């Protein structure tokens, strides 16, 4: 797990930035502070404005209003070739007519760096991304993963203050993605360059990011470390975006002094208990969410409940996925819940099969509660 680090907090400072295309607002009054040496992920669906924000930092899009400062210098009106940032493109945008070596050297040549220095720095970079023996090849002679590393080397060789990555792993297949994620993090820590990553994949954002900013319809909804966003989302949209959820709609019946709410679910005869620090009024309509992995399933329906929310139900389907098993259980009140169990040892919970009556439990502090 990542440990919180102390960053120079305002290394990149985005102040009230708006981008409009005619009547359409792509980015809507976004303010953000990104620290030096941080990996910051902009997470959002398509049309959320994350790529537009990235392209404004790179100097490809004009800022309609507001200001972006990198290390105290404004990017406003500065052409992309004069900004201390480099970008890794989603399509990699490798120059097809140049060799790998020449692709990486391109940026240094434009700077007028001395020939000998270009040679050493390109060689250094290629060995960092483990492509030294491919130096003389053309991009179309490389695999997707190798091309991704060339794009990374080409963007890093100029030692930018900030590296912008647009869906860096989007074009790779699943196995390669996981491997590349850790490789990317290792290289980032080694060089200490600030990374801003745009992605639509919440898993990618959570693995890579020191912090994540979730965007929707041009706005930043929440900024925080992955754990905070996953476990204490301040918005139902974020909770849903970051993973599968069980939803319970209902009204508050009562709240005890130690913050334990009793909630009667809408239309069905079922109560759930949630512990919260937020003040709620009685009879207030709320949505309670519980992550599938926070619930536990027991084969013995008559056993003694150990948690605040015990229910009896029937298993309607089981999906065995290797590292975990997903159960769908129809509770007695008629509502279906999804539960995941890690298969921590061989034949864990193997005695549960479809149509079995089981007991489902979760603790009151493992759920979140949102007003609606």
């Amino acid at each position, binding site marked *: 797990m990542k440990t919180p680090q102390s960053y120079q907090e305002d290394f990149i400072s985005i102040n009230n930035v708006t981008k409009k295309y005619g009547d359409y607002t792509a980015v809507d009054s976004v303010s953000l502070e990104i620290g030096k040496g941080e990996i910051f992920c902009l997470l959002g669906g398509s049309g959320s404005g994350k790529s537009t924000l990235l392209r404004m930092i790179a100097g490809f899009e004009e800022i309609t209003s507001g200001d972006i400062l990198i290390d105290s210098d404004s990017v406003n009106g500065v052409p992309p070739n004069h900004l201390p940032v480099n*970008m890794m493109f989603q399509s990699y945008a490798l120059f097809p007519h140049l060799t790998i070596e020449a692709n990486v050297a391109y940026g240094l040549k434009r700077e007028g760096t001395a020939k000998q220095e270009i040679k050493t720095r390109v060689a250094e970079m290629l060995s960092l991304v483990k492509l030294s023996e491919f130096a003389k090849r053309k991009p179309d002679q490389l695999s997707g993963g190798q091309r991704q590393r060339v794009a990374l080397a080409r963007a890093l060789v100029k030692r930018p203050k900030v590296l912008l990555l647009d869906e860096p792993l989007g074009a790779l297949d699943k196995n390669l993605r996981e491997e590349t994620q850790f490789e990317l993090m290792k290289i980032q820590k080694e060089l200490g360059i600030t990374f801003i990553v745009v992605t639509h994949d919440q898993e990618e954002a959570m693995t890579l990011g020191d912090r994540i900013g979730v965007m929707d319809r041009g706005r930043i909804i929440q900024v925080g470390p992955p754990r905070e966003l996953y476990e204490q989302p301040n918005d139902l949209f974020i909770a849903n975006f970051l993973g599968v959820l069980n939803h319970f709609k209902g009204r508050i019946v009562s709240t005890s002094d130690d913050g334990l709410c009793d909630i009667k679910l809408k239309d069905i005869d079922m109560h759930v208990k949630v512990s919260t620090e937020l003040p709620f009024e009685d009879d207030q309509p709320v949505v309670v969410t519980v992550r599938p992995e926070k619930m536990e399933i027991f084969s013995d329906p008559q056993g003694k409940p150990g948690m605040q929310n015990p229910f009896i139900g029937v298993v309607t389907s089981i999906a065995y996925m290797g590292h975990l098993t997903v159960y769908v259980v129809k509770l007695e009140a008629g509502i279906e819940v999804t539960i995941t169990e890690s298969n921590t040892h061989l034949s864990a919970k193997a005695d549960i099969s479809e149509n079995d009556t089981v007991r489902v439990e979760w603790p009151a502090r493992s759920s979140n509660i949102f007003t609606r």
Partner: protein
Amino acid sequence: MKRFLSLFSKDSLGKKTIIGIPYIWFLIFFLLPLFYVLKISFSESIIASPPIAPLFEYDGDEQTLISTLRLSNYGYLIEDNLYLLAYLSSIKIAFFSTLITLLIGYPMALAITRANKRLQLALLLLVMLPFFTSLLIRVYAWIGILRTDGTINTILMFIGVIDEPIVLLQTEFAMYLGIVYAYLPFMILPLYAALEKQDKSLLEAARDLGASPAIAFLTVTLPASVSGIVAGCMLVFIPAVGEFVIPSLLGGESTLMIGRVLWDEFFANRDWPVASAVAIVMLAILIIPIMLFQNQQAKSSGE
């Protein structure tokens, strides 16, 4: 050749038929006529119809086949320097026409790729529109425009730029104008195809890595479109070398082009063998450099 030989391999009959059709087409409509021209070029001109001496004669008395294969037509091409001058002049005119077409066509192709999708379609249609009319009619239209009492002179005299008409027709300028006008679409279309498939983020990547717009164009857009440039130049240069209609209608009496020499040999002199030799040499001049170039390309990409 290898692919041709594969026709006789153990593929199924259906597959052979499908692959065979283009080869048969090629054989009947290209190789046979070419072979016929080659044959005539080794013959001798006589007053007959067709005006050529047969290559093989059967001598009934001696009971032998007499072959009269002559290289004299090729020798004639070397003796009279008219032919050499015509070849050189044709290549020069084709070269400069190609260069001008490229210089005009490249910005046009680039502009089309940068336009939005709907405008792109309209612009491409405009590029191809001249093909809906016969070339001859379009060349005659140019005569109307360039004549001493034509459109250009009338307008220039009307607004008072010139006092008396300037001679435009029957000049080298008119000939270049005609060739460039006629062949511009053949340059624009392959350039458009090459530029259109270029990833737009290549240019952004170049800018991002520190290139100014001009440097980004010179180091990325231009070299990455070489395939289109080569294709366009070939499509213009090859037919321009043998061009006959445009130089004879728009060009002056003094413009010497091989297409015109060929026409004169065939129709004015009725000397088919010499005309055929002229055509065969022209083919060799055009094909050999192209084959060398392609061989080179294949080698460099096969590394």
